[in-house]
């Protein structure tokens, strides 16, 4: 019997397999940042261990770094200590680091692909749940905890139970103005936040094949929001074209050998999945969240639901609590919800294509009087590219704030936070209570919805402008 894409990549990386034990999996690339690594390096020191493969390890500063005054010392002393600790650890253990101020600095999941380090058929881990982003290239990529970070540093492997496989097939084409973000938000509301637990998911079908690499990364990025171990997409010409010429991409004969291998990374016709979900892209519309988890979503054209709309008592209670936290009345049209802050950025939607799309919608308009628009590029390279294309000037002319690169308001570890009660439309990935700042209220949206919302001050799509 044939193998699925995920099984092929998994089997290629098994160092050791024994009945009754997890597989020992080799890790091709280990990405590191300042928040989840300090205790791992401490563990190495205590056990007098070294980093086995510094040459398969890359560090960047992203989670807590400021997006203003990035050329000055970090004002918050606790954040500064964490960043300084990463710098010391990288120096002590010989790990390549792209620090604040470096041209390759940025969100770890934006930096890997733009350097060409993220390639098909690899295993990639990072102490960050959105590592699933790299699955867009046909890699098995997943987030790990700090104990596992230490394990990978010391051994370049991880003991892992082989997950089950699932196919999410998205047939048809996305309608004009409906994006990868709307697709994945629709999917998560369909499955719930736990629907993917225990599975590596392969996204496939016409709508997936038609996505750019940026769009594929947006879909794979949010795999974790419905609980999947990882999400991946078979590499194709779109993938190869994106990688070719990137700084760390294979060159010459290596390129030919790599592409020949990458072309084998497809699910065999006679392979079977443990579970399948089929969706139709052609009926999808702009999709936004109303609640406090990414599975609490609705079409932009719909209304805030009521607890009575749910059959499961657990969902009813969750809806009631979410409406209270979000300060929303059941039955309110989503388009009437007034937004204070619009956040464009994050590892979900902070790449150059995202900024181009946002600029296209906002060009010639002004940000609404009572609304603030924060545009945070995913990396310094993205910022410089956007500036070269004049996108920054479009944002600034509209009244937006144009910032430096980092995770920023996606998780509010740096000063970019919502105030209590403040409401955001955010292109990021999580609408958890307090995620973007204590008491903050988050609606997850696509790039076009974010840009149109900034102009109108209420949840909107470009069609409303």
């Amino acid at each position, binding site marked *: 019997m044939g193998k699925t894409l995920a099984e092929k990549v998994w089997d290629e990386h098994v160092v050791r397999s024994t009945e009754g034990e997890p597989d020992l999996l080799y890790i091709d690339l280990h990405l590191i940042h300042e928040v*989840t690594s300090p205790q791992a390096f401490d563990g190495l020191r205590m056990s007098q261990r070294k980093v086995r493969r*510094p040459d*398969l390890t890359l560090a960047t500063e992203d989670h807590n770094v400021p997006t203003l005054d990035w050329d000055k010392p970090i004002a918050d002393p606790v954040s500064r200590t964490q960043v300084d600790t990463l710098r010391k650890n990288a120096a002590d253990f010989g790990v390549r680091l792209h620090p604040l101020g470096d041209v390759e600095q940025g969100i770890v999941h934006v930096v890997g692909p733009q350097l060409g380090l993220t*390639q098909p058929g690899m295993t990639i881990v990072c102490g960050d*749940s959105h590592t699933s982003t790299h699955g867009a290239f046909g890699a098995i990529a997943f987030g790990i*905890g700090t104990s596992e970070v230490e394990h990978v540093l010391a051994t370049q492997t991880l003991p892992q*139970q082989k997950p089950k496989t699932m196919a999410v097939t998205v047939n048809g084409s996305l309608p004009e103005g409906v994006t990868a973000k709307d697709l994945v938000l629709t999917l998560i509301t369909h499955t719930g936040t736990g629907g993917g637990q225990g599975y590596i998911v392969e996204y496939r079908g016409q709508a997936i094949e038609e996505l750019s690499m940026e769009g594929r990364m947006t879909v794979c990025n949010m795999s974790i929001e419905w609980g999947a171990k990882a999400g991946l997409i078979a590499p194709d010409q779109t993938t190869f074209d994106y990688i070719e010429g990137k700084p760390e991409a294979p060159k010459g004969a290596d390129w030919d050998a790599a592409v020949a*291998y990458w072309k084998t990374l497809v699910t065999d016709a006679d392979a079977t999945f443990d579970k399948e979900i089929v969706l139709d892209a052609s009926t999808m519309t702009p999709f936004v969240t109303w609640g406090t988890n990414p599975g609490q979503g609705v079409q932009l054209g719909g209304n805030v639901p009521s607890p009575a709309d749910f059959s499961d008592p657990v969902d009813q209670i969750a809806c009631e609590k979410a409406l209270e936290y979000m300060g929303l009345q059941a039955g309110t049209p989503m388009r009437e919800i007034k937004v204070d802050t619009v956040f464009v950025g994050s590892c979900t939607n902070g790449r150059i294509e995202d900024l181009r799309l946002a600029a296209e919608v906002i060009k010639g308009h002004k940000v609404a009087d009572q609304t603030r628009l924060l545009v945070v590029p995913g990396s310094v390279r993205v910022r410089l590219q956007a500036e070269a294309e004049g996108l920054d000037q479009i944002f600034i002319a509209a009244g937006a704030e144009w910032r430096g690169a980092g995770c920023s308001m996606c998780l*509010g570890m740096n000063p970019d936070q919502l105030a209590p009660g403040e409401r955001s439309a955010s292109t990021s990935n999580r609408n958890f209570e307090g995620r973007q700042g204590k*008491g903050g209220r988050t609606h997850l949206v696509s790039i076009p919805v974010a840009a149109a919302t900034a102009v109108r001050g209420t949840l909107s799509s470009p069609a409303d402008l």
Partner: protein
Amino acid sequence: MDKFTNHTGVAMPLKRSNVDTDQIIPAVYLKRVTRTGFEDGLFAAWRNDREFIMNRPEYAEASVLVAGPDFGTGSSREHAVWALQNYGFKVVISSRFADIFRGNSGKAGLLSAQVDEAVVEGLWAYLEANPGAEVSVDLESRSIKAGQGDDAIDATFVIDDYTRWRLLNGLDDIGITLSHEADIDAFEAKRPAYKPVTQ
């Protein structure tokens, strides 16, 4: 890692589903570079509410958490496990755990005991009727016991054999893996040349 065989302690019902890691410990509390001191961040936003269950005196010594489905969703932060442990929790009981949280808890020595939703409901009812009551969790027999007589709860929980074995013996994963270093060397020797390197 300390061995875990069994634990008896005050159990606290947390009647919420989707308790994500941002609720367990908000990001602003993640800036420490140690594995200790995260207890102040545990359920930080909810603790501001004086009525929140953790603020009630009968749960001051709580060490077993009984939560709704999809516990630990969201971020990979192991700080969520450390915050629970630093505060004094030894066991979390739920009907469904997020994969990364479950993995992290197994590595750090916090027991994530998965039970049927009916067991969670039963424990919630028992604990509401008997605030501050103790629950016993035994890893050897994979069992949870509470109460006496007709109302007694005697249930089993699910945990994979490998994690159970490691917890029972307090084993360090890295040490186990390094005993197979020859296998890793052999694997590395046949990796293709086109695989990327960072330096």
